[in-house]
């Protein structure tokens, strides 16, 4: 097991350097001189240009620049945003809770609906429920979520007026961001209606972001359940006269969950990609919207740092899932 963990960790290092290199290289490849972009329409004198160029280190050889960037990254220094002048690291962690809160709710939503849907479909294999649920799942899986978001806004915000269109909480409420998680902060503030407002703002983005994971989890649960239901021990349990609820719920589901948990872990990347679209549409102040805005503003240090942090996050989660899987299933380790 230790060998397995070590070998996985070793492959992490070159991948990390590569990811750093890519995020570093992209910014150098972007059209337009970043310093000229920074100056805006006013322009600047050649002296000022040279000064700024020296300040950001753009006048040194590219290898030196990369080495300095890499050592900076390892010390937690990702540079400062061109636009706000604040450290990229601070901005990331100020916005990250918003994305985490949304992703967490979306994940809960998709697990809470996806696993039961998959189990019901598997138990009723080939019957009406199975067909209906799996057709719905396929529609969800094929959904352009940016359109789905607009559709939900038309129905629930426009026609019914039940949910707000954008933001995390109504402007009526103001309280300090102690944790960055609106649900917790609004509850802690003790203001009447603040929590309800936060929940209302969360509902549509959660549904939109959770739709594709929901479909994936439902499909995966169904196929895993079908595989397990064909095993001998299920027949034994049935022969012993256990109720079908007990067989399906305890004997089968528990074993079917292993691949499902893997899928859930590996969908972090999907979730972050979805967050880009969801946050942009609902003006949700999280990492996804921050990245899109920065790309449009040509805020190079932010794009560079954000790319790196997001990639590292995906890598760490995938590595953890891999290791947990190795822990549960010894067969994997031998490879």
């Amino acid at each position: 097991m230790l060998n397995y963990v070590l070998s996985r960790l070793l492959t992490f290092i070159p991948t990390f350097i590569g990811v750093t290199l890519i995020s570093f290289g992209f910014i150098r490849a972007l059209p337009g001189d970043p310093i000229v972009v920074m100056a805006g329409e006013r322009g600047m004198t050649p002296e000022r240009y040279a000064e700024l160029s020296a300040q950001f280190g753009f006048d040194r050889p590219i290898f030196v620049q990369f080495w300095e960037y890499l050592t900076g990254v390892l010390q937690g220094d990702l540079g400062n945003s061109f636009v706000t002048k604040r450290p990229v690291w601070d901005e990331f962690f100020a916005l990250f809770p918003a994305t985490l809160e949304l992703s967490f709710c979306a994940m809960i939503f998709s697990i809470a609906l996806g696993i039961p849907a998959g189990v019901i479909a598997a138990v009723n294999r080939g019957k009406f429920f199975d067909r209906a649920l799996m057709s719905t799942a396929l529609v969800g899986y094929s959904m352009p979520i940016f359109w789905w978001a607009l559709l939900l806004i038309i129905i629930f915000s426009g026609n019914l007026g039940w949910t707000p269109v954008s933001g995390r909480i109504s402007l009526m409420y103001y309280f300090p961001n102690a944790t960055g998680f609106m649900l917790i902060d609004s509850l802690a503030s003790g203001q009447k209606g603040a929590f309800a407002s936060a929940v209302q703002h969360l509902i549509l983005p959660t549904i939109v972001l959770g739709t594709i994971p929901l479909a994936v989890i439902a499909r995966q649960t169904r196929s895993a359940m079908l595989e397990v239901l064909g095993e001998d021990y299920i027949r034994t349990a049935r022969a012993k006269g256990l109720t079908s609820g007990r067989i399906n719920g305890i004997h089968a589901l528990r074993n079917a969950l292993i691949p499902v948990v893997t899928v859930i872990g590996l969908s972090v990347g999907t979730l972050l990609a979805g967050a880009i679209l969801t946050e942009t549409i609902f003006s949700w102040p999280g990492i996804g919207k921050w990245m899109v805005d920065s790309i449009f503003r040509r805020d190079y240090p932010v794009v560079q740092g954000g790319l790196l942090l997001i990639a590292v996050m995906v890598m760490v989660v995938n590595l953890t899932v891999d290791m947990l899987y190795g822990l549960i299933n010894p067969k994997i380790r031998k490879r």
Partner: protein
Amino acid sequence: MDDALSAEAAQVHARPGRLREFWFYFRENRGAVIGLWIFAVFAILALFGPWIAPHDATTQFRSDTLLPPAWQEGGSRKYVLGTDPLGRDMLSRLIVGARFSFFVGVVVVTVAASGGIMIGLIAGFAPRWVDSIIMRIMDIILAFPSLLLALVLVAVLGPSLTNAMIAIAIVLQPHYVRLTRASVLSEKQKDYVTSARVAGAGYFRLMFVTVLPNCLAPIIVQAALSFSTAILDAAALGFLGMGAQPPTPEWGTMLAEAREFILRAWWVVTFPGLAILITVLAINLMGDGLRDALDPKLKRS
């Protein structure tokens, strides 16, 4: 008499052609057949769109802006699905728009699959260290969420449909590399490959003639799935303003243009998205059918 009998017996026992066998299994999946029909309609619209569309896709009928669909009050027979804020016919734009999505799918899958298969074959046959380098590079690409990487790539290359296609192809290609390499590694150990090698087959022959045809089944399924991913991602990029640029009637771009009218004119938002959904759904249905028909493990299960 005897001859006729044996001929009949031979016919019964003859293995049906590969295509026939495939069609036999594919046809069993009703959803897949429906998907195939929808896809056929989509392909016809993509090829002959401008001749089928009732109006020109970019003509602005200035007196008829934001007309609702024909069945709604105020709608006109002339514009069956209504008109957009600039007075362009929705139906015509949707029909002409099919070709952009189709084009994106075909180009992205061709580029990503051919590149990925080549790299995967090399990784499978090359010495260990080349293999590790290739796979680490693929790991690096896969570490970025695909849409984010495509978005940054398009920002580097400049927003256009071509650049969006290049970006999506780069992002999708590692899946083909992994898939090809995995099947090459398992096929390579089989006896028929050893015998071909003993018979003196060179690397090129081994790679392309001996091994590759036996690795194709999962790759074909992946091609169907990435066809739909490509359409979705291109539309998402268009929606974010980083894909096809207005006035191109690309479905994602149309949605982006219509965004500010969502609460006033439901049809300008609903139909382009519905077009994307139906197309992607049809391709995914076909993909499921392909998987059932091509994957021997799942057959008859």
